[in-house]
């Protein structure tokens, strides 16, 4: 947040960035979950 001296608002851009971060990390976690199960399939 480079909004020195301005109100510490959650701008739409920042909210979108937070959502993007959450989705990316969530997908990584999901990939680990599915990966470990698939790895154990014979």
């Amino acid at each position, binding site marked *: 947040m480079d909004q020195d001296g301005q109100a510490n608002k959650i701008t739409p851009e920042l909210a979108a960035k937070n959502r993007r971060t959450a989705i990316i990390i969530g997908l990584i976690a999901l990939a680990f979950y599915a990966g470990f*199960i698939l790895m154990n399939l014979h």
Partner: protein
Amino acid sequence: MSYATTHDDHHDHKPTGITRWLLSTNHKDIGTMYLIFALIMFFVGGAMAMVIRAELFQPGLQFVDPLFFNSMTTMHALVMIFGVVMPAGVGLANWQIPMMVGAPDMALPRMNNMSFWILPFAFTLLLSTLFMKGGAPAGGWTMYPPLTLQTGDALPFLIFAVHLLGISSIMGAINIIATVFNMRAPGMTFMRLPLFVWTWIITAFLLIATMPVLAGAVTMMLTDKFFGTSFFDAAGGGDPVMFQHVFWFFGHPEVYILILPAFGIVSQILPTFARKPLFGYESMVYAAAAIAFLSFFVWAHHMFTVGMPLAGELFFMYATMSIAVPTGVKIFNWMATMWKGSMTFETPMLFAVAFVMLFSIGGFTGLMMGITPADFQYHDTYFIVAHFHYVLVTGAVFALMAGVYFWIPKWTGHMYDETLGKCHFWLSVIFVNVLFFPQHFLGLAGMPRRIPDYNVQFADWNMVSSIGGFVYGFSQLLFVYIVIKCIRGGAKATDQVWEGAHGLEWTLPSPPPFHTFTIPPQVTDATAHS
């Protein structure tokens, strides 16, 4: 300067009634709920520990049947790990991280609400198994098949609860990562972050990497039980030992998920009460990261006795030893921080100093068991029980207690009762050692873990251990009294609270307003970490 004192302070209204808590998106309220939940579960898990110690007070079966005893050991572990240490750590993170990085709240407040409210449902599912046909899970918190597959109606409840706890943890971790990466105040560079924030970022990445592995393991167990697969069933071409590998690939990093935030808390407290900056800040960050990285390469030291190739045993033994290096860096840095400091010993400092000494005992016994041939002797004895309780009780729980005493004047605006706090500390530190230290002797003498009855040769130390357990357990009621008394009143806390405290959170009023840092603070070296 108080950054929270802004023109719109009079707009600092908060919701009232039950909706304030049910629908909360405020990091402070959610942090409070996490901490209260953890405290309640501390007594639920503690009551189970009392049952265990009462049964072990004397040889022979006194109070409970063996199956229920096994349920108690299993549920005690699950409750204490997933219901106490992890939620308490997340509670402290919720309260402190936004205030420490100068953010107005967590990055994803509604997800924060969901992360918390999943917990009561998950534990209702888990604890309801105590009343089910076949009893609560009794195969150990490690849930090894085929033993755990013998669980009665409780098995799907256990598995679903573990899934829910995993989802909650992952959402909490995502929130912490997003908050620290995206919401830091101007000037709050990564190398200015307080150590507590650093240890939580690293913990969050550990959670993201390992909780899905646990979820995968229990999903496979579920399909083995109910859908005819044979992931871990040798009769169908599966391998039960594979479960142990997958479980401990989660389980060992989990140990660091529990202890890294504790390292962070202690790294905040020692400089404050030594009135010196933390010695070797950068090396502390790199050491925490190194511990987390190495934790992915040591899992099989939990299963040396299943039989594995010599090369595997050697690899996991040396990898385990190598974790002592960054851990040693941390211990020596904490000691150097205190060296020639103007130390005072308020309750948080007492708990933090006890942490450094007693966690080191747990660390050293861990090294002993990391030596493969020695582990063949110690494995599944009371020595391991003593080891992990030194790490998790005098380590993680002591640090959490220290953190609560350290920050509660900031949260409530009142100083806690120092005399009672010190009474709580001395009762805890004396009797926790009476409780766990004799268990080293029992283990070395060959007493197996997870048994409700034992040979008479183990009677004396078991009695000592049980007495320690009862006094330690009941002395925690004093902690509840101190916390309630502090919430209801007490001497007014200043904004800085502690003379040696540095960092953004101490620039806020005590208690901080409902919404903080409505104007972003400008962080400089002077206002950054202590």
